[in-house]
């Protein structure tokens, strides 16, 4: 190892503690006999891993894990348990447990044996850290003008990769909608479906006053936070993926407190799925725009037409504004990528939630009961 040995300080001890907690949580999930316990433990696992990711200098990943792992995936899992009524986990047979333990022990042993040759934790000269990672750090400021190098990699250098990810998310949303429907079943027999309710109209039942008051205060703040995270992605931790999930969480919170029918009036299922598709389409269109201007697909240097870029450059110089016209194309391109990802992720997450929640209405009464 060529770097500095990790000191035995508070951070290292915290890392030990968090990893121990993660292992203990996984063991508890393996032993749990109820899916509800396993889901709540999974939420704990995500929260603990968020802190560990922060220790590993990955605030963007920690942010994503916090909103996705502890937030949306818990909601989806709970919805699935309610729909399947599969609360009990059958005990595995003795032979099955023995075989599973043998396979995991042997495979784990082989992997640990292989991992001995991996570079040490925090080795600055390891192949992963010394070459392409370092190149991005050195060039991102000059090439893209973004302070957050993760955003520069995500939205500019590897924009094509991110387009693939956005398409996968959209395809997954389509898959869920095809299997579970768009959730419109939930509102078919609801008389409120036809008219838009004012925000101050009280629901019929009034036993969630505290929740409703708190949610009314929280939902605007969460939505505002989503947009802050979106527009701040270039200079700090955050970006389109996190912002999209945060925005979806605001809508899910509304549905949980005020009822699905009301939420479907505020955010129509059709609008949610149209937004998801529009995001992917806009992302592709962005790539085509730079082709039209003589560049490569998704090369933000060519986002602005060359003639406009020359005029912008002269104007910037005459006005004495630092940063050339080149940076403007990059800034606009990255913001457009983040916005496209934002609406794709938000639209897909809301569509998925509607799919699961919309089935609950017919699923809650036990068939034949």
């Amino acid at each position, binding site marked *: 190892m060529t770097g500095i040995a990790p000191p035995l300080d508070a951070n290292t001890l915290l890392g030990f503690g968090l990893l121990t907690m993660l292992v203990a949580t996984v063991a508890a999930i393996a032993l749990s006999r109820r899916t509800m316990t396993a889901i709540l433990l999974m939420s704990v696992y995500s929260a603990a891993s968020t802190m560990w990711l922060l220790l590993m200098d990955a605030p963007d990943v920690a942010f994503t894990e916090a909103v996705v792992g502890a937030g949306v995936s818990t909601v989806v899992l709970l919805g699935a348990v309610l729909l399947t009524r599969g609360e009990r*986990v059958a005990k595995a047979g003795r032979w099955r447990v023995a075989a599973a333990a043998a396979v995991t022990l042997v495979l784990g042993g082989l992997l640990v044996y292989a991992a001995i040759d991996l570079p040490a934790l925090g080795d600055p000269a390891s192949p992963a850290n010394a070459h392409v990672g370092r190149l991005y750090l050195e060039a991102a400021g000059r090439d893209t003008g973004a302070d957050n190098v993760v955003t520069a990699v995500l939205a500019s250098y590897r924009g094509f990769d991110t387009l693939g990810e956005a398409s996968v998310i959209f395809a997954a949303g389509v898959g869920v909608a095809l299997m579970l429907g768009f959730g419109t079943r939930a509102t078919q027999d609801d008389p409120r479906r036809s008219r838009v309710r004012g925000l101050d109209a009280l629901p019929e039942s009034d036993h969630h006053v505290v929740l409703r008051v708190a949610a009314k205060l929280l939902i605007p703040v969460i939505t505002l936070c989503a947009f802050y995270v979106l527009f701040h992605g270039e200079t700090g931790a955050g970006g389109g993926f996190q912002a999209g999930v945060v925005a979806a969480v605001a809508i899910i919170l509304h549905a949980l407190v005020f009822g699905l029918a009301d939420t479907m009036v505020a955010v129509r299922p059709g609008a949610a799925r149209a937004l998801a598709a529009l995001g992917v389409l806009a992302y592709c269109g962005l790539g085509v725009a730079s082709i039209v201007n003589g560049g490569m697909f998704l090369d933000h240097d060519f986002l602005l037409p060359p003639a406009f870029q020359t005029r912008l450059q002269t104007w910037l110089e005459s006005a004495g504004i630092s940063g050339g016209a080149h940076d403007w194309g990059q800034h606009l391109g990255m913001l457009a990528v983040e916005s496209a990802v934002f609406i794709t992720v938000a639209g897909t997450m809301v569509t998925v939630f509607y799919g699961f929640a919309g089935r609950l209405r017919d699923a809650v009464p036990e068939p034949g009961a």
Partner: protein
Amino acid sequence: MSASWLLSHYTHPVVIVLMMGGLYIVFTSGNLIKRMIGLAIFQTSAAFLFIALGKVGGGTAPITIEATSEAGQALGQRLPPGYAAQFGVEGVVYSNPLPHALILTAIVVGVSTLAVGLAIAVRIREAYGAVEAGEIERLDAEAGRAE
């Protein structure tokens, strides 16, 4: 196998233990929901391996700061002389941004695919009235014999 070697390599085995825990859950639970939880654990453990390998000792998050700023100087003071010049960029040592960009998208893709898996489980429950793999197999075999 000195103490300092263990201190700098302990994350890899722990991540592998988490991964095997996820695999064990997939193998031993017939309940389809719990199986998906096992898969999710397996997936996050792979993400942790990437992130741990992208950590640079004495580094900070890959969000550019000035070496002369207060935060930049505070970071520099903790490093041995010459370290920042050798491994840093303009005097500040950052962790590797590439695994972060790859993994944060993978996490969001992960929740989408988790939702697809759960949707399949929901439809299986509606078709068979069961969510335990063993029971579903038994019902399938019965339906096969009846035909």
